[in-house]
Structures are given as structure tokens and as C-alpha cells.
């Protein structure tokens, strides 16, 4: 257990040190902080529950879409829409639904929170499963077929392993999204009332509202410790292990392949002994799993007809549910537009433009600092060793948790409340967007093959020519991947960034996010709620279809690194 002890001590040390410092500085807040471990446990449990749900959903949905062509016709466009719309737009609507169904009982609120985190995790994982399954090399599919792999055996030996690298990669993204939503959803207002579930997110939000600096600091420290501990003990070992399942068609030459989120973990210890320990412990479970899957295999081939019927029923149920949802949705929309639009609807175009401009400014700032830093980190092993841990600690804090700090800083910088609110809205968007850009770009720089670097050096490319001919083109695909994710996160951040509470005061700036909030609280206005969500969907879908997709296609064709 030596392997476990050292990093545990490290994390514990950081937490204790931060706690002691805080307790010495603010004795009355220290009492408050005693409940933090419990709150952290609550929050993490919510995350795990939502993640398990997402995992099951992603595998079933992705696998069905990949293997059933008829179902895919409906399932793919649906996933596409779900993936590109900002889920936080549904935030108030979903809450109203759950709270109303359970008549305000805590169970309903708890379910609502888990559901919201689920919506931030599931789609991108399902898409990852689908993409991994459809890009299995043909030779491998043919080999599987020729050895007669079918049903559960095929899933266990071919489909599931093929999916693992993408699933782990997308899970890391999903957890980052999840923390963002968790912090935002533990305390929320719906239907004119405010709901509150105990957790780290709520703790930080309440501290922010009261302007309690000490509690904000301890809350953030604990949150960072939890996120970093998960990185060390879960995601780093998983992502290292998942590399083994990568289906590379590359020939003998080794091409360094470092996908985005893994980049964050380069500096973390690999803990070989701990991993050996854990996997040795898991061996009995693995054996049981193999015996079970053998039995499933047998059952599967013995009752092939039954399996087919169950699948048909499954598909039929899916289609029915899908139709019901679509039809009720359409009917609702028609009803909405048959009546005259509410007078506030005139605000929507301007609000969309304002929100967009704020995100654009944040995106510009993010680009300006992440590109040079990514080049530095990608090219200098030394800079990477010292800088990455610092950046990773900052990146581990979701922008929603940083909200009180950001508003506090904005107040110091800006003279008036109004300017501070604008500045804070941009900064929150910046903090939601920049890490996706940074870590993707670093991976892009690191992905430049050695022979191209050598060629550039031996032909004497330097300075501006080197940037123009080598660095920028090589970064293009990862820049676009990062941008798409960053803008998605930016749209999601609107509802938090444009309507924030700090030290008993509201910081509101005009935009889609604040319109959404105002449609829910203090007086609910369902028409405006739906119209605002619709506007957001239209804007985001238009940007995805008209700007990002074509750019991404072009970039991957032109700047792809394998010749």
C-alpha cells in the first residue's frame, strides 16, 4: 500500500495546510469549514450517480445507433441537437418539472440536480461511443465476423474495447462539465422559490452571497483538492491504461499521440505500485465477470429469437417515446406562436447579440494568451514541468465556483457596479472557455511529428516564418476542436455570468442568460422562458452548422498531420 500512501499524504497535506492557514486567519469561519468534508462527499456522490447514468446511457445509445441503421436515422440528428444546444438553457425548465412532480419534496430536487449533471455528461459520451464504433478498422470487423463473434461476445471482445479510449477521453470532458453544472445547480431558483441542496457548490455560492471571503477560500481549496484527487486516482491511471486499447493503423514509426485532456495529467504521478495493487484487488471481480459473460454468451446463442424480439420491442418503445416527445413539443410550440408574442420578445435579438459579443471578447482574450503559452508548454519540457501543475489547479475549479472571486476582483478593478457586472460576465465566460483551448492547443503543438520539426530546423525556419509555416497550421485542428468545446462552455456559462449574486447584491447585464433567469425568478414567465431557450438553440445551432462544422472539416482535411 506504499504506492497509495505517498500521494494520499500529498493531497492530505495540501488540504490540511490550506485549512490551518484559513483557520488561523479566520477563526469563526473555521467552525463553518468543519462540515466541508461531508459536503464534498455529498457533491461527489451526485457526480458519481450522474456519471453512472450517463455511462449506461452512452453505451446503450451509441451502440444502438452504430449497429442499427434504421434507428440511427432518428438517433443521430437527435444527439446532434442535444449535443449542440446549451443544456443550461433547459436548467430552469427541468427544475420546474422535477420540483412540480415531487411537489417540492427534497427527493425531487436531488433528482433534478442529478438529472442536470447527467445532461451535461451524457451526450458527448454517447457520441464518442458511436464514433469509436463506426471507426473500427474494416479488417478487424471482418476478422471478428470470420471467427463468428456475435452478440455479447462481439460486444465484449470487439466493441467495448474499441470504445474505451474515446470513452475515457470524453468522460474526462464530461466530468469537467459536470462540476460546472453541479456547482450551479445545488442552489437554484425555480417557479419563484429558491431551492438548496447541501454540497460544496451551495457552500461556495452562499459564501459568495454573504461576501464571506474566508469561506469562499476554504470552499475553493476543498473543491480543488477533490478534483485533483480524482485526477490522480481515477483519470490519470484510466487514461494511461486506455491507451492500450487504441486502434492504431499506423505503421512501425512511432507517432506521438497526445489527446487534449490527457495533457492535463502529464505532471501527475503515474503510481505504478498503486495501480498494481488496485488491479490485483479487482482480479476476483474480473474472474466473476468472465464467468458471467460466458453464461450470457450461452444464453444469448440459445435464445437468439427471443433476443431479436426483445430488441424489436426496445426499438418500438424508443420510437414511441421519441414521437410522443416530439409531438407534444411541436404542439406546445404551435400553441405558443398562435398567441401574440409577449412584449418582452422584442428584447431577444439584442440580447442574443450582446451575449454573443461578450463571448467573442472572452474568446479573443483566451486565444491571445493560450496560443503563446501552449507553444511554450508544447515545446519546452521544463516550462511544462513547472507551469502545468499551476495551470491544472486553476483549471480544476469550475467557473461557477470561481464566481464570487471573479466578481470580487471585478469590483476592485472597475469603478462602478455596472462596469463590474460587465467585466465579471466576460471574465466568467473567459474562465469557462480558456482551459479547453489551452489543453487542446498544447496537445496540438506536441503532436507535431519529429521529422517535420527536424525539417523546419534544417531548412532554417525561424521566427515569423516558423509560426506561419509550421506552428499555426499544425495547431489548426486542435484550435478548432478547442474552440468548439470552448464556445459550447461559453454559451452554458451565460446563465451564470449574466445574472450573479455576490455580497447581497445582484449583478445583472442584458443578454440571453439574464433573460432566462428573469423568466424564472422572481415571477415565472413560461412564454419568455421557452422563447429565450429557442433563441439560444437557433443561435448556437446556426453557429455550429454554418461556422464551426465547415471550418473543422476544412481544417481536418488540410492540416491533418499524417501525409
Amino acid at each position, binding site marked *: 500500500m506504499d504506492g497509495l500512501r505517498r500521494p494520499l499524504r500529498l493531497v492530505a497535506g495540501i488540504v490540511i495546510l490550506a485549512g490551518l492557514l484559513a483557520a488561523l486567519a479566520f477563526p469563526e469561519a473555521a467552525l463553518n469549514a468543519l462540515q466541508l468534508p461531508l459536503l464534498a462527499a455529498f457533491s461527489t456522490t451526485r457526480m458519481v450517480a450522474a456519471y453512472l447514468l450517463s455511462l449506461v446511457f452512452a453505451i446503450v445509445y451509441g451502440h444502438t445507433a452504430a449497429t442499427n441503421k434504421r434507428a440511427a436515422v432518428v438517433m443521430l440528428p437527435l444527439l446532434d441537437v442535444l449535443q449542440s444546444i446549451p443544456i443550461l438553457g433547459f436548467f430552469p425548465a427541468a427544475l420546474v418539472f422535477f420540483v412540480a412532480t415531487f411537489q417540492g419534496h427534497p427527493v425531487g430536487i436531488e433528482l433534478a440536480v442529478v438529472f442536470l449533471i447527467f445532461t451535461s455528461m451524457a451526450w458527448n459520451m454517447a457520441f464518442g461511443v458511436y464514433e469509436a464504433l463506426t471507426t473500427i478498422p474494416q479488417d478487424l470487423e471482418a476478422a471478428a465476423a470470420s471467427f463468428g463473434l456475435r452478440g455479447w461476445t462481439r460486444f465484449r471482445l470487439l466493441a467495448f474495447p474499441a470504445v474505451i479510449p474515446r470513452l475515457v477521453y470524453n468522460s474526462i470532458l464530461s466530468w469537467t462539465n459536470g462540476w460546472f453544472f453541479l456547482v450551479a445547480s445545488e442552489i437554484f431558483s425555480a417557479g419563484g422559490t429558491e431551492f438548496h441542496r447541501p454540497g460544496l457548490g451551495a457552500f461556495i455560492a452562499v459564501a459568495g452571497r454573504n461576501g464571506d471571503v474566508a469561506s469562499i477560500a476554504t470552499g475553493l481549496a476543498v473543491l480543488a483538492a477533490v478534483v485533483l484527487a480524482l485526477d490522480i486516482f481515477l483519470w490519470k491511471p484510466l487514461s494511461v491504461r486506455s491507451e492500450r486499447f487504441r486502434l492504431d493503423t499506423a505503421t512501425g514509426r512511432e507517432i506521438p499521440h497526445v489527446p487534449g485532456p490527457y495533457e492535463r495529467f502529464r505532471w501527475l504521478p503515474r503510481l505504478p505500485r498503486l495501480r498494481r495493487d488496485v488491479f490485483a484487488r479487482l482480479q476476483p471481480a474480473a474472474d466473476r465477470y468472465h464467468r458471467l459473460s460466458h453464461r450470457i454468451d450461452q444464453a444469448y446463442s440459445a435464445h437468439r429469437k427471443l433476443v431479436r424480439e426483445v430488441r424489436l420491442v426496445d426499438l418500438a418503445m424508443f420510437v414511441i417515446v421519441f414521437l410522443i416527445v416530439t409531438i407534444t413539443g411541436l404542439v406546445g410550440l404551435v400553441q405558443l406562436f398562435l398567441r401574440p408574442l409577449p412584449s418582452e420578445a422584442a428584447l431577444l435579438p439584442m440580447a442574443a447579440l450582446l451575449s454573443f459579443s461578450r463571448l467573442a471578447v472572452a474568446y479573443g482574450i483566451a486565444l491571445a494568451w493560450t496560443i503563446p503559452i501552449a507553444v511554450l508548454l508544447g515545446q519546452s519540457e521544463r516550462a511544462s514541468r513547472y507551469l502545468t501543475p499551476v495551470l491544472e489547479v486553476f483549471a480544476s475549479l469550475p467557473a461557477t465556483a470561481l464566481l464570487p472571486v471573479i466578481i470580487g476582483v471585478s469590483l476592485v478593478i472597475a469603478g462602478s457596479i455596472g462596469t463590474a457586472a460587465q467585466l465579471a460576465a466576460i471574465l466568467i465566460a473567459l474562465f469557462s472557455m480558456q482551459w479547453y483551448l489551452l489543453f487542446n492547443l498544447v496537445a496540438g503543438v506536441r503532436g507535431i511529428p519529429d*521529422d517535420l520539426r*527536424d*525539417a523546419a*530546423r534544417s531548412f*532554417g*525556419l525561424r521566427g515569423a*516564418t516558423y509560426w506561419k*509555416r509550421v506552428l499555426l497550421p499544425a495547431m489548426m485542428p486542435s484550435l478548432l476542436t478547442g474552440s468548439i468545446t470552448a464556445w459550447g462552455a461559453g454559451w452554458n456559462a451565460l446563465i451564470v455570468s449574466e445574472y450573479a449574486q455576490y455580497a447581497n447584491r445582484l449583478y445583472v447585464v442584458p443578454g440571453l442568460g439574464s433573460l432566462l433567469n428573469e423568466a424564472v425568478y422572481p415571477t415565472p414567465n413560461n412564454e419568455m422562458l421557452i422563447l429565450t431557450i429557442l433563441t439560444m438553440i437557433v443561435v448556437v445551432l446556426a453557429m455550429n452548422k454554418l461556422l464551426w462544422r465547415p471550418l473543422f472539416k476544412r481544417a481536418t482535411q488540410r*492540416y491533418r498531420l499524417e*501525409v
Partner: protein
Amino acid sequence: MTDPHPLLEGKDITKSHFENGKEFKVLELVRFELAERDFVCVVGPSGCGKSTLLRIIVGLEKPTSGEVLFEGHPIRADDPQVAMVFQSFALFPWLTVTQNVELGLEAKGAPPEERRKIARKFIEAVGLTGFENAFPRELSGGMKQRVGIARALAIEPLLLCMDEPFSSLDPLTAQNLRDEILQLWANPELPPKAVLMVTHSIEEAVYMADRVIVLSSRPGRMVAELEIDLPRPRNRKEPEFYGWVDEIYSLIV
């Protein structure tokens, strides 16, 4: 000879890697000289460090001890008098054939019209006229390596270094390209003044080189330096040709 220095001089090049405090020798005391109009091949079994040797010669890596002198001065990686052709072609996928060929000229700061003119000349010399605006991925392997060669020649280097330039090509394409390089080499109007090529194919070395340097396997030591005095063009079917191949074989095995 008015110039006291040879074009290229390797002085006791030794290269070691260190892992966990242990020393792994890759190259040991390799020395050689190249004069103008020399075509030299370095052959050796795989893993003998011949690619490392080439990287040291062009200045992409530093030797652990010893030094490489080019016209009497320590070599620099970005020396415009030395050009490199890569086994993997190392073409920039986002640049057209012309832009790839112009790369070294652009780095030198040559004006666009001049760059274009020189690029056109060398694209024609390697027989790629008509593909000036194609991207590397649209070309076959043989054509890609032609771009690599044109790119190297375009900076009009004194020394051309090639790292297994034909190993990624199919045998037929490789043979055609070998003959074309020899034709270019036979024209004294065209650069370079000397060629240094690394290969694992003994036949290729005997077919192309004036001189063959034979390395042993790990660590790479110089086993022999042989003057191939066969008349050009050479015929692989002649017994003399096979005599040389057999001799080198026996040196390596």
C-alpha cells in the same frame, strides 16, 4: 587544392545515451572526410546508429564527444549550405508542392519572384511539372520523395544528406528514383557538390556511391571504408558488382 579544409570532416564522433545512470553507446569514434564531388554511403545493420550519425552530421543532434566540421567550422543545423532528405519525406501537409520546395528559400528571406523561379526549376528537374499546386496527400510515395529532393536542391546546397530516402518506397519506384538522382548528380551544373547517404541496403550503396563507409552494429564503429571503382552507369548483373556486395556483406555479418 587551395582550400586546406575538406568539405566535411567528422572527428572521432561518439554518442551515448544515459538511462538510470547507465551508459549506452550508440556510436564510437566514427571519423571520415568528404571532398567535393564525393558520393558517400554509410551502410550498416539496423540499429547501428547510422541515422543518429546523419543527424549529428547535419547538426540536429550533438555528439557526446568529437565534432563535425563543415568547411572547417562546426556544423549548424540551419546551415543553408547543407540540405536534408528524410526517410518519411517530412513534407508539410498544409503546403503545396511549390510552397514546400520554397521553404528553405523563404527561411533565407529570398523575394517571392525569385523563390518561384528557383522552385519551378527544381520541380521540373525532378519531373513534377504540372503538380506545382498539388498537396502532398494527393501524391504517390515516389512523387512525395521527389518533392523532398527538389526542396533540398532548391537551397542550392554544397552538401546533400539523405536518410534512407528510398526505404519508404516500393522497389520499382525506388529504382527509378535512384537512377534519376544519379542523373541529376552527373550534371555538374546542378547542386550539390557532395552527397552523403545513409542506407541499410548494401546493393543500393554499391549501386550509387563512390565510397562506402561500413558500420558495425551496436555500438556503431567503422569497420571499413571502401572505394567503389566500378564504372558508371553500373550494372547490377555484373560479377564485379556482386563482388563488392559480397565483400560488404562479409564485413557486416
